[in-house]
């Protein structure tokens, strides 16, 4: 049974020269197994930090409070040795920027088999056979030839598929895909979508897709959480969130898509910058006076989704 991932009151703080910065701010949510969950947000929303914190892959300068549960186990209180056994084997990662995630001086054969043999399950020859099979599954027609090459000989799209294969090498139950379509053009984006779909249907992986690409989230994910300044401000099924957004930020974000009008979200109103309320208050076209004073709590909608906005209380 693949366990759920539950986050309770997670806060991640970085010390900078300008003072402490909260990338993730008291975030609590549960990602249910057996589904593709999407987390969308723009730069600075904290989505990648949240993803990396699930695997304890944050830099030393980060201060983390709160709990992350993988089923019954709490990830931040378990010994590092046990966490390492989880990483890759139970929770796989498909990182951002595949070109930078592959070692340019190591043949692909070694990189793929290394992941498999690290978790001690198979010997090298069997691992190679597995790797070849994995590559074939991901649309590589001549896996033997690919295994002998280096990452810089592959195109961007191929690297993305390779890195996805790498994340799945040990058949984890959960996969975290961090910005899988960042910087890729439209045709390759389609390929990435197909690959991720394939992973879900064939391997029955539960997936957490972190992305700024709204169209990808719409097509791929079952449910979507919208992050803004370290907080989840809306969540619901993909269709609900994208077609009938509740929170003014989500609505603004969708309207700024080229296909939905290219209407920008207004810049922050300088008179509203000092406030103690909702993080979106300085830019919100529907803000009320209350919004500047108190931060809204989470409200459950009749559809089952949730939103953090006084408009819905």
């Amino acid at each position, binding site marked *: 049974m693949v366990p759920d991932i539950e986050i309770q009151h997670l806060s991640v703080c970085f010390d900078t020269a300008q003072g402490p910065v909260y990338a993730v701010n008291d975030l609590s949510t549960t990602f249910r197994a057996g589904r593709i969950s999407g987390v969308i947000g723009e730069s600075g929303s904290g989505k990648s930090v949240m993803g990396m914190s699930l695997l304890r892959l944050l830099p030393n300068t980060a201060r983390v409070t709160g709990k992350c549960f993988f089923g019954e186990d709490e990830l931040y209180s378990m010994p590092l040795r046990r966490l390492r056994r989880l990483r890759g084997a139970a929770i796989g990662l498909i990182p951002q920027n595949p070109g930078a995630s592959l070692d340019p001086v190591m043949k692909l054969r070694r990189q793929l088999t290394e992941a498999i043999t690290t978790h001690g399950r198979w010997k090298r020859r069997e691992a190679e056979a597995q790797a070849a099979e994995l590559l074939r599954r991901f649309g590589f027609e001549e896996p033997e030839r690919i295994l002998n090459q280096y990452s810089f000989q592959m195109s961007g799209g191929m690297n993305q598929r390779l890195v996805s294969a790498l994340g799945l090498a040990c058949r984890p139950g959960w996969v975290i895909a961090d910005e899988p379509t960042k910087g890729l053009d439209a045709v390759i984006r389609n390929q990435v979508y197909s690959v991720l779909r394939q992973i879900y249907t064939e391997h029955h992986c539960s997936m957490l897709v972190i992305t700024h690409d709204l169209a990808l989230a719409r097509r791929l994910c079952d449910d979507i959480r919208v992050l803004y300044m370290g907080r989840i401000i809306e969540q619901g099924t993909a269709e609900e969130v994208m077609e009938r957004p509740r929170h003014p930020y989500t609505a603004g974000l969708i309207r700024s898509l080229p296909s939905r009008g290219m209407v*920008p979200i207004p810049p922050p109103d300088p008179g509203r910058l000092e406030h103690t309320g909702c993080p979106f208050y300085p830019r919100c076209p529907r803000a009320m006076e209350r919004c500047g004073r108190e931060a809204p709590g989470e409200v459950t909608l009749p559809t089952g989704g949730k939103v953090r906005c006084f408009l819905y209380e």
Partner: protein
Amino acid sequence: MNKVLELEEVSRTFSSGVFRTHTVRAVDRVSFALERGKTFGLVGNSGCGKTTLSRMITRVLKPSGGRIRFEGEDIARLDRKGSRAYHRRVQIIFQNPEASLDPSMRIRDSLLESMAIHRLGESREERMEKIRAALGQVGLPDYLLSRYPHQISGGEGQRLVICRALLLEPEVLLLDEPTSMLDVSVQASIMNLLRELQERLGLTYLYITHDIELLGWISHTIGVMQRGRLVEVGSRDQVMEAPVHPYTRELLYSYTHWEGGGET
């Protein structure tokens, strides 16, 4: 002159290998023209030659064949004075705003320098005045002037690069994937700014991107490049609604397919 910039059978080959035997045609006999005050959108996937083309227009690379004319004059034959004038009137906006600015210089100094190169403005005060006016035009606050490039966000950076270009009062802006590294909402605000500037200042744009959706919104004419060749050119409506070339159809399919929402 209505045709501000014209490309006539422009080609560029690269040779590699020990004896220069292996040649690649990055750009293959491309011809099109930019109309004053309008946007020409150039679309194609990575490796289609659009970046090489833009580097020929900025005179970083020389064409192997064909000619590029600016207001009738061949840009490969400009003298020193003509070349400086060309670089003032035709400017490029790159993809990554942070990389376009010298990391060791404050924003203020970068902006002052671009004016100094072209000897615009009599005194520092006059230049600073022009800079403040230009910042207002792109919607940026003054306090950014004392910052370094790594201290500003992507959206602010791109506005600054546009501001730096505007200070020289250009006529043509070459936009090479200007929003591909930006968030969706920031992209929307930059695109709106570009459109507004075009209407107000009569700028001519060559907008290069792999995202045909954006061209549908901002272009008047669209050209499609594939493997170095211009496979289709037409008005915006013509290309977006009734494409002729199969590659154009493939590109359009990639995007409309997404907006269908739903097939899982």
